[in-house]
């Protein structure tokens, strides 16, 4: 079982490696063997040479030759887009497909025969607790593994079409594969250090993918920002892992969970709070959420893969995985609840005012992730994971559908869209399912999962913060109420911004456009199917089943938000309903100017300190060293004074010395 999981982890990794090293070679072999590429007849010599230009870059780094003008590479430029790069395409899609099949087998096996299976390949000595290189498969990881597998496959297939004429397809595809591999490592890791390896590798893949169009400085900055902001959280996470691992005497997750109860209370709380840093970074929660909207600089499929379904899910998954630790530290859960409430409402407000469709979806992701962390904070672990899975499906769907629209109109801006429902019927229907799920309309998946979280939050608020967990843990009553009210407000806001995005994309004055190609259409159809039916799986579990009172309350808020937005839109279908917010809009659009604040409070002082250190190093530290030179010269000059070269002086000195010695001897004896 763990062997299957190991294969699932390793396959995309090998795919990435081979894609970079052998992909061009495979293309040549296939072309020479008479396989037609998308462009036309097999094996014209010019094309084969063109592909040769494409030769391997070093594993783990981007680097395909690209014309100096960068992104505006002429269509069909050899060796840039996925067209003509048959080898890299095969190395990207086939291992991912095999991996998806493996995750499906794993999930089915665990479903039929529940239980935890662990396997260890090796034990690495460290001088302290050893690192167990091994995997563990249980219900939670099998479910997440399947989600990652399906979304990754959808994204790889979609990318073949989407990246047809974009530069550097093969390094792009390799990073997507490597990323998938790293995420699966996080999901299946049995040891916290191994988990951390996957966690960080994912981060660096995200850096390279966000910066895919590095010709533009803004994209480069966005990539750097994403990596650095998450790394701030990751530093905390690493310390948290160290505290937990040394407290329990092992980095093995099962051992840590077993030992959490017997650790000193302070240790557990500190560890849990440190872990939360990592969670806030990766899952883009306040105050470390600022990287996610900028991360939309990457190609759209990347936004779907990383910033909707997988990487951002890692933080939520980590809390769920180590829930035993958090149950021992309700203080950390309370902090998580407050952060979730702030993220949820703040991001939903920001989403309301965005002009860029992808940024809107990014803020919506922050808000939806906060619903999951809120669920975790009130003890609704199952509901949170349920929402994680449904959100993974419908947000990947929404991003990929947005990619189809962006592909068709050539712009990310909502104002350039509108009236596409006739021209793009498939995308329209699929996106409608996605927005319905986002807004939480029954019977689509999002309704069930969000409702499960809200119901649980209501219960805990009414129970004055008692979580109903085994340990009898409780969070402060006001925290529970804050979470519950934030959830309701967010429900209304979500309905409003989802409706706005839907209306502004597909309604209003009609516009001519083409439907997306098959490789882009099919993944969204599949994801739409999943988003439509996933919710019913929740009916199997009592704690996930909706109940009339709470569900009606949530639907009431949904209706209020959607109704207000519809009224704002109805009068002027061609304009942006967000314009009605007048002077509030810039504040929301800039997400309360938090970026500017961080720039003032962190970035500038650090840069200033750097300059101070550079100057001090030169003037003070090195200055002292260099001052030793004149000092030594001065000493030397002093020592040279008596060396006049005059024998008379020397003799006088000699006599004086001898006299002094004689006198001294006489005086002392």
């Amino acid at each position, binding site marked *: 079982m763990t062997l299957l999981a190991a294969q699932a982890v390793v396959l995309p990794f090998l795919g990435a490696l081979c894609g970079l090293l052998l992909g061009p070679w495979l293309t040549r072999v296939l072309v020479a063997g008479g396989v037609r590429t998308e462009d036309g007849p097999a094996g014209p010599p010019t094309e084969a040479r063109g592909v040769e230009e494409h030769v391997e870059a*070093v594993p783990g780094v981007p680097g395909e030759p690209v014309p100096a003008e960068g992104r505006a590479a002429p269509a069909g430029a050899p060796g840039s887009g996925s067209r003509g790069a048959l080898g890299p395409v095969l190395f990207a899609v086939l291992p991912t497909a095999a991996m998806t099949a493996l995750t499906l087998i794993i999930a089915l096996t665990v479903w039929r025969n529940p239980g935890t299976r662990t396997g260890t390949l090796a034990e690495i000595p460290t001088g302290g607790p050893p690192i167990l290189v091994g995997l563990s498969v249980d219900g939670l990881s099998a479910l997440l593994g399947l989600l990652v597998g399906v979304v990754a496959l959808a994204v790889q297939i979609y990318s073949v079409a989407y990246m047809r004429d974009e530069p550097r397809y093969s390094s792009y595809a390799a990073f997507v594969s490597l990323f998938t591999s790293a995420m699966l490592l996080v999901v299946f890791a049995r040891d916290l250090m191994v988990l951390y390896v996957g966690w*960080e590798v994912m981060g660096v893949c995200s850096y390279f993918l966000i910066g895919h169009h590095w010709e533009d400085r803004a994209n480069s900055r966005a990539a750097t920002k994403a990596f650095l902001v998450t790394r701030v959280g990751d530093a905390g996470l*690493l310390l948290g892992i160290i505290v937990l691992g040394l407290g329990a005497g092992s980095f093995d997750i099962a051992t840590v969970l077993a030992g959490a109860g017997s650790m000193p209370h302070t240790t557990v709380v500190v560890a849990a709070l440190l872990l939360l840093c990592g969670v806030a970074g990766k899952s883009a929660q306040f105050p470390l959420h600022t990287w996610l909207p900028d991360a939309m600089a990457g190609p759209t499929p990347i936004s779907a893969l990383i910033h909707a379904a997988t990487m951002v899910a890692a933080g939520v998954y980590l809390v769920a995985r180590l829930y035993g630790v958090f149950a021992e530290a309700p203080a950390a859960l309370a902090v998580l609840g407050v952060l979730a409430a702030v993220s949820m409402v703040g991001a939903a407000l920001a989403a309301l005012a965005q002009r860029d469709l992808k940024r809107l979806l990014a803020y919506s992701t922050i808000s939806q992730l906060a619903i999951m962390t809120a669920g975790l904070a009130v003890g609704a672990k199952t509901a949170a994971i349920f929402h994680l899975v449904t959100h993974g499906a419908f947000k990947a769907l929404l991003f990929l559908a947005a990619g189809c629209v962006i592909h068709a109109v050539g712009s990310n801006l909502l104002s350039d869209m509108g009236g596409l429902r006739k021209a793009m019927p498939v995308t329209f229907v699929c996106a409608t399912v996605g927005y319905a799920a986002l807004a939480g309309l029954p019977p689509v998946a999002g309704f069930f999962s969000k409702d499960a979280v809200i119901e649980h939050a209501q219960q805990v608020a009414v129970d004055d913060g008692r979580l109903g967990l085994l340990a009898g843990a409780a969070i402060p009553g006001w925290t529970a109420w804050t979470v519950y009210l934030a959830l309701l407000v967010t429900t209304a806001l979500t309905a409003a911004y989802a409706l706005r995005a839907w209306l502004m994309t597909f309604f209003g004055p009609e516009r001519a456009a083409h439907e997306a190609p098959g490789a882009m259409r099919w993944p969204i159809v599949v994801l739409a199917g999943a988003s439509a039916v996933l919710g019913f799986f929740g009916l199997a579990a009592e704690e996930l089943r909706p109940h009339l009172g709470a569900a009606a309350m949530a639907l009431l808020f949904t209706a209020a938000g959607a109704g207000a937005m519809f009224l704002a839109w109805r009068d002027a279908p061609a304009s942006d309903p967000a314009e009605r917010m007048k002077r509030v809009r810039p504040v929301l659009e800039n997400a309360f100017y938090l970026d500017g604040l961080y720039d003032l409070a962190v970035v500038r002082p650090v840069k200033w300190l750097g300059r101070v250190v550079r100057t001090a190093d030169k003037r003070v*530290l090195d200055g002292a060293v260099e001052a030793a030179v004149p000092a030594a010269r001065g000493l030397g000059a002093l020592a040279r004074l008596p060396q006049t070269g005059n024998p008379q002086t020397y003799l006088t000195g000699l006599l004086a010395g001898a006299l002094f010695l004689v006198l001294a001897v006489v005086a002392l004896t």
Partner: protein
Amino acid sequence: MSTLVHLLWLPLAAAVLPFLVPASIRLDPIGFGRVASGFVLAMALVQVAAFDYGEPSRMQQPMDVPWIPAIGVRFHLGVDGISLPLVVLTALLTFLCFLYLGRQEVRNARLMTALLFALELGMIGTFLALDLVLFFVFFEIVLIPMYAVIAIWGGEGRRRAAHKFILYTLLGSAALLAGLMLLGVGAGTFDMVALAESQGMRIARGAQIAAFAFIGLGLAVKTPMWPLHTWLPDAHTEAPTVGSVLLAGVLLKMGTYGLVRIAVPALPEGARFWAPLLGCLAVVGIVYGALACLAQTDLKRLIAYSSIGHMGFVLLGIATLSATGLNAALFGNIAHGLITGLLFFLAGSIKERYGTGDLAGIGGGMLARAPRLASVLAFASVASLGLPGLAGFWGEMLALVGSYRPGAGLPREAFVTYMAVAAVGAVLTAAYLLRLLGRITHGRSGTGVVVADVRPAEWASWAPLIVLVVLIGLWPGLLLALTDGPVRALIGAGS
């Protein structure tokens, strides 16, 4: 006879040989150097093959003959799990340096070849020596060739940099010699194995503290530890590429190796006394180095300051006086040698292509102009910022683990604080490396000056480093299995 001797006479002969050939005979000194250093590397690999991995803490292939009987100095060599990786690293980097010199025009190539082999002799000897005096002799052999390499083939400010390098490190050596004598005379033996086994039993606490201070001072200059680092940026900026590679890749490790091999096991009381201060200076170095890097405008200077930060992690590991921390230090030594070696190779190639090491002068868009060169630079930078899965991570992570639970008798609160500060340093490290990547690899290139992509000789000298960084990063057990046993033995009996 011990096969370790081959590791010493081969470089020695190779250093002398080019001068024995009459000037009338045309000789390709670099080609000769490639072959000879290849032989040395092969001998080092023989040691890897012959090593008994069941007993990494035993001194293997020992050789122990009287050298200066009058004062009890012996020619004592041996290799264990601590020194084996460093010996291989030295032989490998020297070989790669000769590969890198490839078809380049080297002024006075005979002298360069001879000096590089003299360097190799001193470096390998330092890691093999098991006698205090012998250790000191090899430690000093390294100085003159490195001085000459900087002073002859360096950049514009080479004389000043070379003088600063040699005077500063000689001053350190004086302290080191005094400390070694205090230790050797106090314990009545120069035998490092016996000294480590006795765990400082025969030396009074005060003498231990004084001896550790002297030895530590001497080695700290070499490492370099903040605030004794100011010779390093100048030396690196002016040194030719191969000089920088060996300086950062191996020379700096001699300092930390000496601490682990001599000072910590032989002077445990002294170590416990100084460890909190050492740890403090180490984390100051980490943060200071990273901050200084953020404001650097010269590529080689930036990498030099980054070394101060990375060696800070190594020193922090040592300061914890725990098995984990010492493992971290030894791992960090090797990882830094591989990664920074690669970075200096890259810096040399970039400087040569662009005609400047100034970041503004290099401009942006290297990914468009020389995509493979930029890709390798991105790889090396990511490795240097300590990405898990690559070599740089494990040393830093284990140093943090070690400081969370430092050795017996150390103030835990102080070390936990160091851990937190070091973690901040790790974030800053990522910041300056990504800033570097963003500045020179991203963006559009300015004028269309053609920049050659990676050449075959460069691939040959970089590929082994890239492979090793990945290999050790994915499987840290390769090194940890070697060092864990000896490290436990070194500190075991003392605590």
